């Protein structure tokens, strides 16, 4: 394929995307001439280029569309659902042809389809009367009889009425009365048909009328009208091959790696350390820029939904309004592609299962029109995409029953499960609540596919539903795929990388503890984690490595992969590290346990483990472990806390706020004004020095300190602690007498412990403000 054609395909596809958006918008704002002009331009551009490149199918089809749009633009026709459906159908055909050109290089043959399409569009020309009588006063005067102007002619298209109207329009466009003067309208119609059997010349409506109205726009208005709006964008942006971006991303990955190596290479030379730090900063910046270049707004995926919602609602006889929010939120291109299908599926579900029929909605006191809301926003290093519908919500009892019927959950377990837990069952394979299989959904492949696809890219899916109020499906997507945070673990002298996304916590077993704390049920090794049994997988056995000596210390990485919870027993832990994922050769991918390989900061290589595949292989079930344990404890008025030592005292951090625990050298902690801050994953983190760790430290820059990174609402803060002690469930305390629940205190290990209030940590703005204030104060003090 030559460059010209490729360029044409790209542009046409973009044009069609834009048209589709505009068309669905047009339906809600029929009078918007801007929109019409935009659509017209898109079709016109396609038509112009196709003629030039010799794609005759495309040319004749877009010509027909252009004619119809020309009438719409001039106000001779008013947009109505039929016209919009017709134009959307036209776009589908055009898209099909573009695809065919892309794959085969030729348009393909389907004259029948084209003919039908063109006829359909022509029909549409004629069905509606002119929107304004003034627009066509001249030619009409003689030929048109008054009765045609019935207010809603579309509803009763009696044969005579229709042909009269057709005749009127065609008379308007055919050469002046010389021939039509004595003949009746019907005869004109007939002669015109006979005279013009060719599809190309059949709809000359717009072509004939346009030259007469140079002001409203001729076939070539596109450049002038488009130029001022788009020239700015065209000058400041350029198209870049995705391959090139991928390559750049790879190279940046290399640079990150080299940087890691340089940072780890100890050097006594202070100048070198400074250079290394500079390299560190530049690399971080560069990485961010390249990642940004790969970002695309989610509107690229959202834009298809107005059409989808419209078609689906029509076919299901429902009334649905689509609201979209946060379309400008950006996501890595490959991830955007990956969420396209799950999102489509979720929206289909929302309309098919969620939104009720207008009658049912009115009966339950809701407006007849349902709302599906798509929302995208950033949250930390993730993008959240929500599909929210205000439909009937999920029937918890029905789901519970179905889960039992389909043997997805054992009956007694299902009875115990909380509503939240039960909702998670919809993500199990083979679950579908649809009463009947419709063309839209209900085939039993559903939410599990959504979850699998989202988890494949390191994301998570959550669902929340209220009976009668609606359902929210939340997709949590990482910002990028190429570089992921991972924990490096060791097994039999070899490094492996565990993606942090799947890691929930770590348990260390000291010398000789493995025998006493790991229990066995026949062959199955189990670990009692806060009272619940957790299946264990020994990495060395799984990978057929030499056996480990019993009694040696080991670590259990508690993983949650695709809803399967298990513990992976490894010999030891190394550092957490941001790793660059390198693909493995096909022969090694087949093994299944490896998601890729990476090169570590110390230059060694490590295989990246695939927790999902390991769980599946080990037979770790989904069912009983899907629900998070916190659901259980929360019911008993309990919360899980991270117990930490701060100086001489102990404090509790709510576990759900803890993002990460880091050991870092003190030299990495910097100061903004008087506040200690830490650069963490490229962001600035305010530190709360509760343990006075930093003050006590003295000047040894090599000394390490432990920082617990916590999430407080939308921000993250770091807490310096002396030591992390345990994770434990804490009970609420009641004040004697009043029975009021003690705020900020909890009972942990039978000891009253302070709960750290993260909101008390001042934000960085304040830090900077106070700095400015200090400055202004000192400035005032100047004589």
């Amino acid at each position, binding site marked *: 394929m030559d460059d010209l054609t490729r360029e044409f395909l790209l542009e046409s596809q973009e044009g069609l995307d834009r048209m589709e958006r505009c068309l669905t918008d047009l339906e809600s704002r029929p009078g918007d001439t801007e929109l019409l002009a935009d659509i017209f331009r898109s079709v016109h551009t396609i038509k112009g280029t196709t003629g030039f490149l010799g794609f005759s199918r495309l040319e004749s089809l877009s010509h027909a569309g252009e004619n119809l749009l020309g009438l719409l633009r001039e106000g001779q026709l008013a947009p109505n659902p039929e016209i919009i459906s017709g134009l959307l159908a036209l776009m589908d055909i055009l898209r099909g042809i573009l695809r065919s050109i892309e794959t085969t290089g030729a348009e393909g043959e389907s004259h029948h389809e084209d003919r039908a399409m063109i006829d359909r569009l022509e029909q549409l020309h004629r069905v509606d009367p002119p929107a304004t009588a003034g627009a066509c006063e001249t030619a009409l005067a003689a030929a048109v009889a008054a009765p045609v102007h019935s207010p809603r002619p579309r509803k009763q298209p009696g044969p005579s009425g229709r042909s009269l109207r057709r005749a009127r329009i065609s008379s308007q466009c055919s050469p002046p009365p010389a021939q039509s003067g004595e003949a009746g309208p019907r005869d004109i119609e007939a002669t015109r048909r006979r005279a013009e059997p060719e599809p190309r010349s059949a709809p000359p409506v717009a072509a004939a009328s346009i030259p007469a109205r140079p002001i409203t726009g001729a076939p070539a208005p596109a450049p002038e009208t488009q130029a001022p709006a788009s020239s700015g964008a065209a000058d400041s942006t350029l198209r870049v091959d995705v391959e090139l971006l991928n390559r750049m991303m*790879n*190279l940046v*990955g*290399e640079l990150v*790696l080299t940087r890691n190596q340089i940072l780890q290479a100890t050097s006594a030379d202070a100048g070198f350390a400074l250079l290394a730090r500079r390299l560190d900063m530049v690399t971080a910046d560069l990485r961010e820029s390249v990642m940004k270049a790969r970002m695309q707004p989610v509107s690229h995926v959202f834009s298809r939904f107005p059409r989808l919602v419209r078609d689906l609602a029509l076919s299901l006889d429902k009334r649905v309004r689509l609201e979209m929010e946060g379309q400008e939120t950006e996501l890595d291109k490959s991830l955007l592609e990956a969420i396209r299908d799950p999102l489509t599926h979720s929206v289909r579900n929302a309309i098919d299962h969620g939104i009720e029929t207008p009658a049912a909605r009115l009966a339950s006191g809701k407006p007849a029109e349902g709302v599906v809301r798509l929302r995208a926003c950033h949250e930390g290093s993730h993008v959240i995409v929500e599909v929210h519908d205000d439909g009937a919500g999920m029937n918890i009892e029905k789901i519970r029953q179905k889960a039992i019927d389909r043997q997805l959950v054992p009956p007694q377990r299902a009875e115990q499960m909380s509503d939240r837990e039960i909702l998670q069952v919809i993500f199990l394979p083979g679950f579908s609540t649809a009463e009947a299989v419709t063309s839209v959904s209900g085939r039993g492949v559903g939410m599990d596919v959504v979850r699998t696809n989202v988890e494949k890219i390191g994301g998570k899916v959550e669902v929340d539903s209220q009976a009668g109020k609606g359902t929210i499906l939340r997709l949590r997507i990482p910002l990028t795929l190429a570089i992921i945070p991972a924990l490096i673990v060791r097994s039999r002298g*070899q*490094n492996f990388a565990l993606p942090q996304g799947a890691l929930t916590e770590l348990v260390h077993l000291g010398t000789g503890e493995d025998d006493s704390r790991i229990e066995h049920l026949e062959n199955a090794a189990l670990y009692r984690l806060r009272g619940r049994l957790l299946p264990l997988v020994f990495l060395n056995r799984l*990978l*057929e*490595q030499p056996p480990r000596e019993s009694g040696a210390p080991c670590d259990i990485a508690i993983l949650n992969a695709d809803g399967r919870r298990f513990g992976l027993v490894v010999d030891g832990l190394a550092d957490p590290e941001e790793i660059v994922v*390198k*693909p*493995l*050769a*096909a*022969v*090694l991918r*087949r*093994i299944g*346990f*490896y998601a*890729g*390989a*990476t*090169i570590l900061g110390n*230059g*060694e*290589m*490590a*295989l990246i483990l695939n927790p999902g595949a390991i769980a599946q292989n080990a037979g770790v079930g989904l069912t009983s472990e899907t629900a998070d344990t916190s659901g259980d404890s929360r019911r008993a008025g309990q919360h899980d806390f991270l117990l930490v030592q701060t100086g001489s005292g102990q404090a509790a951090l709510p576990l759900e706020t803890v993002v990460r625990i880091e050991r870092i050298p003190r030299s990495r902690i910097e100061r903004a004004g008087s506040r200690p801050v830490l650069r963490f994953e490229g962001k600035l983190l305010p530190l709360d020095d509760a343990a006075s760790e930093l003050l006590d430290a003295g000047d040894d820059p090599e000394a390490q300190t432990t920082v617990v990174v916590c999430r407080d609402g939308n921000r993250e803060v770091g807490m310096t602690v002396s030591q992390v002690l345990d994770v434990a469930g804490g009970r609420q305390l009641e004040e004697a007498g009043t029975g009021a629940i003690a705020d900020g205190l909890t009972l942990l290990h039978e000891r009253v412990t302070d709960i750290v209030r993260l909101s008390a940590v001042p934000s960085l703005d304040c830090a900077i403000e106070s700095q400015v204030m200090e400055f202004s104060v000192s400035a005032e003090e100047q004589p």
Partner: protein
Amino acid sequence: MSQDRTSQTVEVCSVRVGDTLYGVPIAHVLEILGKPATQPVPLAPYFVGGLVHYRGEVLTAVSLRRLLGMDPACAAEDVLVFETPGGLFGLFVDSVGEVLHLSAGDHEPNPPTLESRRQALFDGAWKLKDRLIVRLEPERLDPMHLASAFPA
């Protein structure tokens, strides 16, 4: 035609595995890595010697020793990097020798008496004055090809 062939010379990179000398036409060799750090891959097919780091990529390297059923040497090995239509891969050999200029006319196909596995891996040999050099064809050593040709 034979006139043409005899007059052509081929540049061959000589490598040694055990007592045998092998040669790979230099055009196929992308790079030679001297005793690189390697990473074994548990559960990999038997002929995979491990992973090597090559210019930011992680290459799968085939071990000629393992492939030929020889004792995998514990000593560090050199790696030849090849590019085939299927992608890049490495080949572990005991050591890489010098580049030889061999005459195409001195090349002869595999003898029919050669064991079948070697029959499939080798591509004939060049006759030198005092010894033979086995010709290796990278495409026959591609891990994907090996996986289908010699399943464990």
